[in-house]
């Protein structure tokens, strides 16, 4: 639990799974497992989401949808791929219509094992993703600060060179 600074908002998308993992994701949000304990709520809007919960092996019709959802999410963001078929295609890995795992389409931060994944392991995946999110946020801040510093420095150097040119 250490390392979680802010309440992450979740978005859930079923990218051609069998439903088993999806209903377990919903089970995580309801009273028995209750992901709201960690400050999570589900949103339907990718522009407000921090963590992307994705199940299934992503079929060809779904590839642009998944990419679109991922691109709409603001930085920093984390992706949790839930279930065996989100990892390699699982029991469907030989099917003709699947891309064989979420990682072939968008970068994945956490894999949750199981077919169907159990709610306990999904919760674990969400908590890990929240920690990764906190780290990403930190490094994003650092890189932004450095960028600002570099810009200031560049301005100063430029200004100094001009001044020097004026003297001669």
């Amino acid at each position, binding site marked *: 639990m250490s390392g979680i600074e802010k309440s992450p908002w979740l978005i859930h998308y079923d990218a051609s799974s069998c439903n088993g993992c999806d209903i377990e994701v919903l089970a995580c949000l309801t009273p028995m497992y209750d992901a709201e304990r960690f400050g999570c709520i589900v949103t339907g809007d990718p522009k407000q989401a921090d963590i992307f919960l994705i199940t299934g*092996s992503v079929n060809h019709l779904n590839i642009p949808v998944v990419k679109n959802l991922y691109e709409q999410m603001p930085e920093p963001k984390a992706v949790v791929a839930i279930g065996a078929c989100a990892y390699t295609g699982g029991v469907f890995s030989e099917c003709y219509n699947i891309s064989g795992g979420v990682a072939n389409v968008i970068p994945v931060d956490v894999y949750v094992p199981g*077919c169907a994944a159990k709610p306990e392991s999904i919760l674990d995946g969400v908590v890990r993703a929240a920690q990764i999110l906190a780290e990403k946020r930190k490094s994003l801040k650092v890189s932004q600060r450095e960028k600002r510093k570099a810009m200031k420095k560049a301005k100063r150097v430029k200004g100094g060179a001009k001044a020097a040119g004026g003297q001669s």
Partner: protein
Amino acid sequence: MSAHEKAAPGPTVIPFGPQHPVLPEPLHFDLVLQDEKVIDAIPQIGYIHRGLELLVDKRDYLDYVHVAERICGICSFMHGMGYCEAVETLLGITVPDRGRWLRTFWCELERVHSHLLWLGLGADSLGFENLFMAAWRARETVVDVAEETAGGRVIFGSALVGGVSKDPSDETLKRCIAAMKPVRAETLRLANVVMNESTVRHRFEGVGVLSKEMAYALGAVGPMLRASGVDYDVRRRGYAAYAEVDFETVTETAGDCMARALVRVREIEQSFHIMDQIVATMPSGPVAVPVKGMPPVGEAWVRLEQPRGEVLYYVRSNGTRNLERFRVRTPTFANVPAMVEAVRGASLADVPNIILTIDPCISCTER
């Protein structure tokens, strides 16, 4: 027409899905609207299509049960069992009594879990979060029973060609029935909420009406058909142990969202009634017969009643270990034309709850 002239008020097309807050699964509709009224809905499916019917080519016919169970995670046991029944018909195998009784028990357990799941999602589509949470809390006991008796919470993993693969003791089954007593009481309470709560009635009554004639003509199945007043339940065919148990086919006549909700809520009570009888009359003996050798050349088909309605399984064998063809006709696919009919004429705000009251299962539909 110049850019300054106002366009004549024609129909507007609003895309609905594939990613939508009320839909747990991707489904796409182009809703054609005249002001707020839906005049047509054009469904597009294919977001969950994996092509797993073709996997029969690559898997041994006895191992394919694992794939069949993953056609859909909500009615997984029934999919596994339907495949098994079709293959058993092909092979001419009779399942032992205890196996048939356990199959009936798990089918009804799955029906209860599916209907409670639907009740939650239906409530969520209205924005009734409290009912959503209450239904899902009650459902947790049911999936715990599934885990204890079959081994899995949602994918049961107990279907087997020739019988079932798990044999819970009679004591375990009796304990499970006792553990589900509070769920029965809670279901009755929730049924009361659905019937009497003004917010639910306001959104469900008279919304998305499907007449008896239309439901029959469009080939609707399951609760969708029974809510329009057609008494049709494939369990009456007497597969598994349904010929030996007593149950009532639940029908309603209104054909609106409320009728569909009530059919499901009342079916939960019937499922508990069936499970009671199954556990009380559980025969002893083996749960499965060993299956060896190749399937004979030929074809077979069976029908079952899933939580969402009638489902048909067809298998064709060419005498090798891999079947030649496997085909499933799923209830949601049969219900899509009826859903489009129910959505026509509704207002835009009612579209989510009409779609939810057919209890769509997209991963069954597209496989």
